[in-house]
């Protein structure tokens, strides 16, 4: 099933993503293209903060589809992901109908039973919303590695048939084919069946050149030399053994902070003052100050591993 308005080529997808502010490299653009052409879900894995969620948002913006987001957490179950009946409202309706008919003699309040399981009492959660949508959507299932295997099994069922059966209402089938993007922080192995179903994309930290482009795209006022220095320092920090390596968003934040502070160059004092923007743990800060801070006194040299 091809999506409506499927893109013509990988190059077109790449340009489209760039136009909405996401600089994709070749594998990412290719997988985004294949997802739309083949109609298969995409599983994006990678370290935290490399732009996995951003990719889904960018695909939604560039293809003009609405984004529906399901944020996964431990203990997420069908009721919060698929649909739920609004029990409180239903009970209130039953009780109020019962009071209203007390005055009348006669049989059971037949009308009330029919109404209770109608659309107005159905709470639609993201998955049902995506399936029942009238126009094409992008369904983002974020951080699926936080859920458990039962949830994955349920998701598989939904993703394979794109229909949901609600016993009281009937079967709801998808009229349009959503683009499904699953992201995972790689904290656990996902089930084979789910991986088999999806196209796989590994997003890693970008190269120095690419990250510079990204930083300059999102913080345009920064001077080129300073941007290069900043990105090189961030790369050095990432190579250390930290609890939480800095993400791309944090590089952008740092660039913006440096612009605000009016810093002309990234020397040791500026670095130590602003280090907390990219390093967020006490123990990491000590390590970074010791390893990287020392090198910043003089001209910067790239270090290889």
């Amino acid at each position, binding site marked *: 099933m091809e999506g409506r308005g499927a893109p013509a*080529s*990988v190059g077109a997808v790449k340009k489209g993503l760039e136009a909405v502010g996401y600089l994709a490299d*070749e*594998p990412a653009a*290719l*997988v985004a*293209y*294949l997802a739309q*052409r*083949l109609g*298969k879900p995409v*599983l994006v*894995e990678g370290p935290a903060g490399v732009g996995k969620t951003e990719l889904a948002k960018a695909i939604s913006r560039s293809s003009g589809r609405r984004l529906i987001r399901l944020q996964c957490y431990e203990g997420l179950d069908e009721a919060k992901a698929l649909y739920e009946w609004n*029990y*409180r409202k239903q*009970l209130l309706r039953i*009780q109020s109908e019962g009071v209203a008919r007390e005055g009348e003699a006669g049989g059971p309040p037949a009308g009330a039973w029919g109404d209770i399981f109608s659309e107005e009492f159905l709470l639609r959660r993201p998955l049902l919303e995506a399936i029942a949508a009238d126009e094409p959507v992008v369904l983002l299932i974020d951080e699926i590695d936080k859920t*458990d*295997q*039962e949830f994955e099994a349920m998701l598989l069922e939904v993703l394979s048939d794109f229909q949901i059966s609600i016993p009281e209402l009937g079967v709801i089938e998808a009229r349009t084919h959503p683009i499904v993007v699953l992201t995972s922080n*790689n*904290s*656990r*192995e996902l089930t*084979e069946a789910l*991986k*088999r179903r*999806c*196209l*796989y*994309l*590994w997003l890693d930290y970008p190269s120095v050149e690419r990250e510079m482009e990204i930083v300059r795209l999102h913080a345009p006022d920064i001077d080129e030399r300073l941007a290069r220095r900043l990105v090189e320092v961030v790369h050095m920090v990432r190579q250390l*053994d930290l609890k939480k390596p800095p993400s791309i968003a944090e590089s952008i934040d740092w660039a913006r902070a440096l612009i605000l502070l009016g810093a002309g160059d990234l020397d040791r004092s500026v670095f130590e003052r602003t280090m907390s923007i990219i390093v967020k743990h006490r*123990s990491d800060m000590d*390590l970074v100050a010791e390893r990287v801070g020392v090198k910043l006194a003089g001209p910067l040299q*790239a*270090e*290889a*591993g």
Partner: protein
Amino acid sequence: MGADHAKLPPGLAPRLIAFCEELRSEGVALGSSEIMDAFAALDAVTWTVPADFREALAATVAKSQEDRRVFDLVFDRFFFRTSEAEAARRGIREDRRYEQGGSLDLEDLRDAIRQAIAAGRDGEMRDLARLAIAAFGRRGEGSGVVGVDVQRIRRALGLQAQSQRPEAPGPPLDREAIARFERHLRRELERGLIERTGKLPPSRPLADLDRALPTSPAQDLAAVHRAVAQLKRRLATLGHEQRGRGRGRVVDIRRTMRASLETGGVPLRLKYRPKRPRRPEIYVLCDVSTSVTSASVFFLSVLHALHDAFRKLRSFVFIERVSEVTDIFERERDFGAISARISSEGGVADVSGYTDYGRVWLELGELIGDDLDPRSTFIVLGDARTNGREPHADAFGRITERAGRTFWLNPEPRLYWNYGDSVMAAYEPHVTAAFECWTTRHLEDFVNVVAGGAARPS
């Protein structure tokens, strides 16, 4: 293994299937559905862009980082061999004009190669590899064995990782980049060989050594981190698997009744008592004599990286005497520093520096004998080579009686056990299970067993 390329029916489909067969033989789990997806994906991309072809295939076939690594190696090898076989069949030869060219300045060549490696330019690396081979071939140094020649040329070019020669001039190189250049060298040498002999060399499966434990803690840090990250993931998965089991869960009456207030006193939703995953207590004893050092330090660091999965972890090292090293791991994060401190502060060597298991059991019994209880797991990493000294299997037996489970990890393959001065047979009866542990896969299996609480047959 591997179909003879000349005999396959024409067209891409049989070759793709042959490629997938090779991937399967290297351990990548590929089903027919993925092969169908691969065909559909290749249908959608243009094949004239090699990167697109490769990525489209990888997105449908390699579904994790480990699979992708195997995929890359097999892809290069398969399509290289296919194109070479075709060239050999048609009698196409490379145009080797540059070999007759003027004299090659070795210094310039070295610099050019270093620049190309640092910048990661593949096309340039390939051309420079050919030049390098031509230069050294002309000197008559080629031996005809590809692996040996690759190393000779690398040494002659002075290519060493930055960590080993920090004062070398030119841009710094890391191990991965040099390995890439070596692959180009190897490929060009093989290409030359195929042209000369007119047939393909036999294809060997990817060395299992690709997956073996790193032999030196200072190098291959990336491999260590990879293995650790993978083990962490496996343990996290394991925790999920155990928690997910719905059977045998107890209804929590209080929480159910509280939740029922939402629905007018009707208990529509049952709340269960949460099931806490079992967190074992671990005591680890590692042999750090020279025969086993790298494996043991690696193993200890892996365990400490997983310390959040275990409730209590205490580690000890020994050669002739035992010394506790738990705090070294807690204070140091750097792998190199850890191994340096253990070897210097260990205080475990005595006179001869040869392992003495018997004495170790006697000392250990006094150190932790009282702390062991049925909830603990005791792990020994060693080769059981006690250099002819008294094994004191009974002292070992007393320790293992106290602990809930005892595991022995032997970094030698099972065939070597009890050969020479190894006394595994004396210790095996006292342990719950003994494992051989010299690849990361063995390590993973073992960690699964420890965290899962179930002993599997080894």
